[in-house]
């Protein structure tokens, strides 16, 4: 029963962590794209072009490897637990 509790609540906790990290990562990427635009093209003032540039960059991010790496949040803790079980027992 305790094992089921660990799996269920562990999964819930890791889901919260995953959500937080993916929101954070996306936000950081968007900020970087904004800064890049503002630095390289300070004279282009149309909002449309800036929006398109950012949207394109975000699409690259959504399909990229980095976003999938966040899924490791669900992989690493079980491995750590299994390692502890192996060494303690």
């Amino acid at each position, binding site marked *: 029963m305790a*094992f089921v*509790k*660990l799996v269920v609540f562990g999964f819930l906790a890791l889901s919260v962590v995953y959500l*937080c990290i993916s929101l954070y990562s996306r936000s950081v990427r968007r900020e970087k794209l904004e800064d890049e635009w503002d630095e390289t093209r300070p004279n282009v003032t149309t909002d449309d072009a800036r929006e398109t540039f950012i949207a394109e960059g975000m699409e690259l991010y959504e399909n990229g490897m980095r976003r999938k790496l966040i899924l490791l949040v669900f992989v690493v803790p079980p491995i750590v637990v299994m390692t502890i079980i192996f060494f*303690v*027992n």
Partner: protein
Amino acid sequence: MRNIKRGFWLAVFIIFGAWLNYLMPQQDIVRIVHTENKLQYVAGLQSLFYADVETGPNQDSTGRDLRLIATVRKASYLFGLIDAGTETMVYRNEDTGWIYPPYFKFDSADLHAEAAAASSTTEPYNWMVLTHYGWRIPFITVYPNAVAIRPAPNEDYRPFPWLNLIILSLLLAGALFVRAMWRQFRERTLARFRS
């Protein structure tokens, strides 16, 4: 207001530090003099420190068979920097199960056999490194929980706490990451609502 804030963070720091001190593995140099079982009733404040009833084989009872390892250990002050001769120490040997504390220990019977096999009451003494967590609190009959034993190379051997160093570094990294996340959230999301 400022002092209240400071006091709050100081209290958080002290409580978290004490909790870590209770939870982190520590290694003692011991020689085992005796291993025994006794019937122990766990109630009230004690249940903070003992394993959950669900973990053990005594689910329908308030009493439990508690394995104890009586030892003589090398005492020290200031995290092992100052030697203080020897003193007696009694450890309990209890499964932790799946939840808390996260040691995932299920082999207390084997550990008890190892401890019995290593017991040493006559010279030359058989010094062992005993890994444990927890506190000895005599007033409410609480013992630190032994997790593992291994032979010590010699009597003056003092293991370096590598594992604790790694765990504390990871905790610090985690705390800094959470702070970075919070700052990003405040700067990008909350600021939008404020303006």
